[in-house]
């Protein structure tokens, strides 16, 4: 058994050496960047938009109990059901029991990261219920038996040729790499599912406390079909998704679209408040909202990182991250990848197994700069590192190394002495061609990079002599 950290390193090395993969990823993110830059110019004051979003989420998260209860009351009044799931197992059991009770054979699902988090589709498939992912990107990765590669664009790592080959094999009725034709083939395949499914499962981008509605955003209209045709609608939502007022969406919808894809607003922004009403002629007979904790209250209990619960899952920090852009989404081995994933995962799945993710960062801060709800992402990566050290999760040698480093740096004489020894040793090792071998203390770097040129004289000595020259 390898650890998550070993898997990460191995996959990162493979993916960063795969130039085709890097090319696809770069192209996808370049297209995204162009669209987002255009999108940002549509705001008179983007910074004010971010600040306002931060304020609204701050208000919601810091009064989470009040707003969830308000939401629950409104949903109950309309005849909807709320289930509070403490963990993934609670949520899976509730939904599979519900499906079995209603003899559900087919489920149409729209894109939802939280259902990935609880591995819902696998649990349902184990009950011999067919689950169709209906978002095109999700449908593609489902056919490949892969998890989504990216929060917003799940099939970002694939070319149209990859998808053409996949559809030819799995769907059979299409043999072209034309995106239009490929989309049409997926539409044909999924239409049947939509019209035969007994249950629709969605996530939600927001829970609206003052009106008891959930807000779902799609471009394809797949969630709209999924909440219209089947007789049961189940929404699985993290408890942190609540916002206080319906009017808050006047800001969040454009902001989510801009940061997510660069669009001014997404095509279908759907609000659902319950099952089919007494004066309505279509829609599900039952509406269930599964409110999921699964570690979120532990993050809430950390006042320092509580704002990580503000996340609206736009994916902007993934696209901005130089590490994500090099190693890609699957390398993380987690539901939530990129900077936000590296912040959240140690809280949701344990600092023991996942503290390494907080080291997969140059701390450049690009993630924090693009976050539309102003989560202090790169500082949280630092906080996670500190927490890992305090929890004795880092190798003991790391601590001794830093103690040694501090001791040397605290005295000019010691720095001069050890600097001289270091330069001499490294010049010898590199000079003898031993860079990257077991004898090279810098081998972690030099295994992948040409060794740097080591100067004969220290910086201080060079500085002094150049001052002398000027005199």
């Amino acid at each position, binding site marked *: 058994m390898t650890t998550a950290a070993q898997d990460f390193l191995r996959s990162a090395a493979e993916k960063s050496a795969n130039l085709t993969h890097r090319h696809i990823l770069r*192209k*996808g993110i370049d297209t995204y960047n162009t669209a987002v830059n255009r999108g940002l110019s549509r*705001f*008179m*004051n983007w910074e*004010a*938009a971010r*600040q306002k979003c931060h304020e609204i989420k*701050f208000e919601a998260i810091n*009064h989470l*109990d009040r707003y969830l*209860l308000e939401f629950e009351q409104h949903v109950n009044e309309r005849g909807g*059901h*709320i289930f509070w*799931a*403490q963990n993934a197992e*609670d949520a899976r059991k509730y939904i599979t029991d519900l499906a079995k009770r209603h003899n559900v054979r087919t489920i149409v699902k729209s894109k939802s990261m939280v259902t990935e988090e609880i591995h819902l589709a696998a649990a349902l498939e184990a009950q011999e219920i067919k689950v169709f992912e*209906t978002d*095109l*990107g999700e449908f593609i990765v489902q056919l490949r038996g892969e998890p989504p590669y990216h929060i917003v*664009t*799940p099939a970002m790592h*694939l070319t149209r040729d990859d998808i053409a080959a996949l559809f030819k094999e799995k769907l059979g009725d299409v043999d072209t790499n034309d995106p239009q034709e*490929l*989309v049409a083939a997926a539409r044909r395949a*999924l239409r049947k599912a*939509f019209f035969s499914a007994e249950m629709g499962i969605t996530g939600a981008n927001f829970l609206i406390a003052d009106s008891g*509605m959930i807000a779902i955003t799609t*471009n*394809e*209209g797949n969630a709209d*079909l999924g909440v*219209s*045709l089947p007789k049961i609608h189940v929404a699985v939502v993290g408890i942190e998704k609540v916002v206080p007022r319906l009017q808050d*969406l*006047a*800001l969040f*919808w*454009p902001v989510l679209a801009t940061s997510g894809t660069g669009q*001014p607003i*997404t*095509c*279908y*922004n*759907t*609000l*659902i*408040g319950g099952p*089919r*009403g007494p*004066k309505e002629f*279509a829609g599900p007979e039952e509406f269930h909202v599964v409110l999921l904790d699964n570690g979120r*209250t*532990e993050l*809430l*209990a950390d*006042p*320092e990182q*509580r*704002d990580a619960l503000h996340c609206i899952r736009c994916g902007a920090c993934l696209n901005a991250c130089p590490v994500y852009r090099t190693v890609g989404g699957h390398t993380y081995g987690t539901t939530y990848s990129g900077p936000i994933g590296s912040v959240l995962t140690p809280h949701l799945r344990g600092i023991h197994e996942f503290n390494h993710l907080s080291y997969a960062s140059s701390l450049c801060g690009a993630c924090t700069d693009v976050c539309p709800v102003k989560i202090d992402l790169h500082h949280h990566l630092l906080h996670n590192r500190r927490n890992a050290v305090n929890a004795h999760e880092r190798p003991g040698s790391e601590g001794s190394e830093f103690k040694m480093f501090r001791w040397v740096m605290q005295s000019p004489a010691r720095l001069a002495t050890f600097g001289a020894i270091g330069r001499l040793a490294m010049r010898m090792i590199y000079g003898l061609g031993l860079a990257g071998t077991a004898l090279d203390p810098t081998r972690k770097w030099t295994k992948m990079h040409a060794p740097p040129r080591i100067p004969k004289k220290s910086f201080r000595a060079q500085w002094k002599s150049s001052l002398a020259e000027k005199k």
Partner: protein
Amino acid sequence: MAQTENPGREAILGRIREALTKPAAHHVAKTTDDIFFPMGDPIEEFQKQCAINNTEFLSTTSVDASAAAIAEIISGLPAGPIFLQDAPILRRLSPTLLNGHKVQWSTEGIPAEESQATITLAETLVAATGSVFVSSACGGRGAAVVAPIHIVLAFTDQLVPDLETAFARLREQGTPEQNSMIVLITGSSRTADIEKILVMGAHGPRRFVVALSPRSE
């Protein structure tokens, strides 16, 4: 059905309350700065945004002119039922609109799979984003997404400048209380999941049409 059993409810609420006894580490300054650009003429803006988001915008001088423009679109469609919201005005206009096609009224349930178009009214229109709010009352669930074309018959008095105003209008009308579903539609169904290339008509309609006129009745 019996009340949902919720063993986790008190546990989760308890953990939330316990967590929130410690205040967040940072405080938030309030911004009052304007976020969006000021709006010019709403109809012009709506038209401009429709051009960007791929909504077919038909600006006409009367409801009858809108009906005629819609009828022209319907006449070009293959055989198959047209789904109409069961509203008095659409009942009245239906002979013009249907152009010989079979009709399915929204009171008969969800649009049939083979529907060629759906025609509905709107709750309100948003100029800033070129969007249309519909609700369960506007033909019910599925009316906006089942057919290849969704056509909205709208009136100039339904147009508001921005989303903020639109939500206030929905509140005044009691739309959230009276409808189990509200959808903000901006353009027609699309996806860019394959190499970020834009393809129209993913699961929902390929064409989204808004016919806008003064309310001339």
